[in-house]
């Protein structure tokens, strides 16, 4: 069984925002909600690095731990999904998430905070596959179509890889061996690291 993961190669990301556009288009995400975004470190400075960030579908997801109504679940493929019918929009998951993934649409008056929305790894949610309810609440279910997330598949430089963790790690390992640099993977320690084996952070390195 595949264990789905995202991997962003900071050496390759050119900050084109193709992944953001692909995600928005695929799921018809409204204004103000960004399931995926591109973050640039040291913007404008020579050597700047960009990474595409969304829900990393953590192995030990903090959002799941803090949710007061227990609306999160892990699929067999390791994708973290949630039931919007149960979500109360409290925002605890937003504070717990190290990647800032949970989004809250503000459609009503007085800054009303709606039900949480986040990247689903294009796996829909707890509704019948390909149903109108699933699309309206969670977006398109590409995984059930035998496809991978639109952001990763649309990435023109293949900086963003998404899919079976073993396969994408192999692809990345080959790249690093060939180019001889850029072995650090942003966010993997935080998302998929084992707490009992966490190494002390070294100055100047990425987690």
């Amino acid at each position: 069984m595949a264990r789905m993961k995202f991997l962003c190669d900071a050496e390759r990301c050119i900050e084109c925002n193709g992944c953001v556009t692909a995600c928005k288009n695929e799921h018809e995400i409204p204004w103000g909600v960004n399931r995926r975004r591109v973050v640039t470190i040291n913007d404008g400075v020579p050597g700047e690095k960009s990474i595409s960030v969304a829900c990393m579908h953590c192995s030990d997801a903090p959002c799941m731990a803090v949710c007061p109504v227990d609306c999160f679940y892990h699929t067999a493929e390791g994708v973290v999904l949630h039931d919007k019918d149960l979500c109360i929009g409290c925002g605890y998951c937003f504070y717990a998430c190290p990647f800032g993934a949970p989004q809250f649409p503000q459609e009503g008056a007085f800054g009303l905070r709606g039900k949480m929305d986040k990247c689903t790894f294009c796996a829909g949610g707890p509704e019948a596959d390909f149903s109108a309810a699933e699309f309206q609440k969670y977006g398109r279910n590409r995984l059930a179509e035998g496809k991978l997330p639109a952001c990763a598949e649309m990435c023109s430089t293949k900086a963003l890889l998404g899919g079976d963790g073993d396969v994408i790690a192999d692809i990345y390992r080959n790249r690093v061996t060939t180019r001889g640099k850029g072995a650090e993977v942003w966010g993997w320690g935080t998302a998929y690291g084992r707490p009992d084996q966490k190494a002390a952070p070294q100055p100047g390195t990425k987690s």
Partner: protein
Amino acid sequence: MMKGVWTTIAVAAVLALGAAGCGEKTQVTVFKQGKYQGKPDNQPWDNDRFKGDQVAWEKAIKARNNGQNENVRLGAK
């Protein structure tokens, strides 16, 4: 006489506060892993597209996974 009453009240107050202190419970929250309370979800191959064929679904996903490797696509080693 009055002094004795005040002493009794003071002793009673000390004893009551002391008893209340002994009954104080720990304020530390013990984390308890929650259990999913929402609707059940099906497997990605349990639909009209794959008709429950897990092997076909895994094959499709594997092809997509490998499609991200440009070295394989270009035929390089």
